[in-house]
């Protein structure tokens, strides 16, 4: 476990060292090239900003309205048939649309039911096994100006649904229901 943790800690310094040393060795004017490249970063962030505003406003309004409760209420019978605990269901819907909000929700769930309860473990697993789909889609496609995303969202949501389902199943088989 320590070795695995160390991989994350040392990765960035090692990657930077590798890039810089290879650059100097190959005769690249490292600082000039860095500054030129960094300009591209600036342009990209400015290009993303309008779509980011649009997305985050929509998500903010959706969350504040309480519409999530309605959706959870409608989906509850299906979820319980699939073995997904009702208490973790709001997270399943919030996770793809907002990373920070679902982080707060996981924290609430862990406090309310305990981190070592079945619900706590399912929520933790769900949180760790997917990304915030809408944020990723908006930022990545927004950065290059793609408007027609074709089937990307459907495939991403399919992956998400599987992760929700498997999270509950894996916790049930590995830790049991307590």
């Amino acid at each position, binding site marked *: 476990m320590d070795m695995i943790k160390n991989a*994350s800690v040392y*990765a*960035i310094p090692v*990657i*930077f060292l*590798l*890039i810089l040393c*290879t*650059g100097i*060795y190959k005769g*690249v004017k490292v600082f000039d*090239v*860095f500054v030129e*490249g960094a*300009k591209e*970063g*600036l342009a*990209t*962030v400015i290009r*993303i900003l309008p779509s*980011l*505003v*649009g997305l*985050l*406003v*929509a*998500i*903010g309004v*959706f969350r*504040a*309205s*309480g519409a999530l409760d309605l959706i959870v209420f409608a989906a509850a019978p299906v979820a319980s048939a699939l073995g997904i605990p009702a208490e973790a269901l709001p997270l399943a819907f919030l996770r*793809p649309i907002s990373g920070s909000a679902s982080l707060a929700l*996981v924290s609430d769930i*862990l406090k309310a039911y305990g*981190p070592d309860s079945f619900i*706590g473990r399912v929520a*933790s*697993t769900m*949180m*760790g*096994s997917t*990304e915030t789909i809408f944020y990723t889609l908006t*930022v*990545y496609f927004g950065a290059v100006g*793609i408007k*027609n*995303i*074709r*089937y*990307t969202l459907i*495939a*991403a949501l*399919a*992956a*998400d649904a*599987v992760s929700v389902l*498997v*999270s509950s199943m894996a*916790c049930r088989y590995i830790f049991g229901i307590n």
Partner: protein
Amino acid sequence: MLDYIWFGLLVLGFIVGIFSGRAETVTKAAIDSASGAVSVGIGLLGVMCLWTGMMAIAEKSGLVQRIAGLARPVLKLLFPGLARRHPALGAIVMNLVANFLGLGNAATPLGIKAMNELQKLNPKKDTATDDMSMFLVLNTAAVQLVPATVIALRSAAGSLNPAEITVTVWIASISATLAGVTAAKALSALCKSGFRPKRR
């Protein structure tokens, strides 16, 4: 597609907000989120510049192309549209590694870099290519070596063994990745078979 989702989130939010007596809350959320988005963008700005700068050096020195060459055998099934040493492959590999190691700050700039490279190969600039969709799917179902954020949350909540969920996270995210890749490949094949008759 994104049009409808965006429309749905906003309209559903406003309607439910008005009818549940939260009109004021909803309005405040809209304004706060708009300024919040700018903070997110500015927060991203510094790291973004750092990584695009570093990647520029790595590209000039041939390092990215070398990484691309090494990763090609593994990735050619997923990204059939990419040539052997294309810089997009290098950026894709580095993004996937950053995701795997849980380096969120590095993953996003590298991912955007990869999208920029993929866009150069795109004949229809406003439409996603199969390679782009595959890349996005891999990113949304990212497999992480150590789910550090969740472990920290569990530990803060007083868990006896905060890291025990690592195994279930692996199982869930690997299943999700497999499902996503399968779905992307299947949908791409479906699109192709559906498009041909139209062209003729």
